[in-house]
């Protein structure tokens, strides 16, 4: 069987804010960090979602998604929800999934949006204030 590739994307701040991404097929540890302001968020997040789907199908080990996104535009938030739903489905079929989200303690709006994403995806997320 062909080995799955890892994903590594550096954060960028030019005409958009692109978050840093690191998905590791050996450990199942996946990280998305920084600010996500993208015009075509769907195009950016689609390969990440597909990576997770492949990992779930072929490797079928535990997934740890560590998010430290401090800003999400609306389009990005939809894509994150789609990823969370993919993980929720994996969990339903017995997959080991754990998700955490670091956010700025002062950013109540972000906290509320994360809470809403928990409701929307029905997937528990460990909330970690202030990057502690």
């Amino acid at each position, binding site marked *: 069987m062909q080995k799955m590739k890892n994903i590594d994307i550096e954060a960028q*701040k*030019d*005409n*958009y804010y692109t978050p840093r991404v690191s998905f590791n097929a050996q450990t199942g540890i996946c990280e998305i960090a920084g600010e996500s*302001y993208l*015009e075509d968020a*769907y195009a950016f997040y689609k390969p990440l979602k597909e990576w997770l789907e492949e990992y779930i199908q072929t490797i079928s080990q535990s997934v740890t998604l560590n998010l430290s996104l401090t*800003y999400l*535009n*609306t*389009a990005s*938030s*939809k894509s994150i*929800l*789609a990823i969370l*739903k993919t993980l929720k489905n994996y969990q339903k079929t017995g997959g080991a999934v754990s998700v955490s989200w670091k956010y*700025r303690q*002062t*950013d*109540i*709006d*972000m906290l*509320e*949006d994360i809470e*809403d994403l928990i*409701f*929307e995806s029905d997937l528990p997320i460990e909330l970690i204030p202030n990057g502690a």
Partner: protein
Amino acid sequence: MKVNFFNYYMKIKDDENVLISYKGPVTEKLIMEICSDIREKLGTNEEVIQKVFAIFLELSRNLLDYSAETTARFGKYHEPIGLIILNENDEHYSLTTGNLVAKEDFSNFKAKCDMINSLNRDELRQAKRDQRVRSLDIDEAADKAGIGLMRVALTSGSPLNLDYVQVDEKYSFFTLSVNIKRF
């Protein structure tokens, strides 16, 4: 075209400070510039800066998606034209965007704003959750502005102030203004 800048200047109230005022082609590059301006100029209250920043990005996204006026007539670029103003007074910051919009887009847009303004905070959060879940199953374009405007209203904690002038049979010019408490 004749623009009465003096009139415009004098209309700004004495107790208001203009931090940013722009009319022209709105590009992603400009939006990023204004973002760094917002972070530099707005003092030290992280919570408030983040609110202004987030609201600005949603409103400017809206402008890019809806503006019916572009620079295409005079150049090779199709850049949407719009108005962006950030004011401050003792109590709040106020962010305003303005642009020309097609009639059918406008009525759609106004209906969304009216709906959002009629909901209390809990109802609005619930509506946002419902719509974001639904949005995964429908065409991306079909959902434009809805969730973004709800997030603006939630982040600002104040109503969406919509003002508009019908320009002709096809177009309206409208401004969307939101207040953000400074403290």
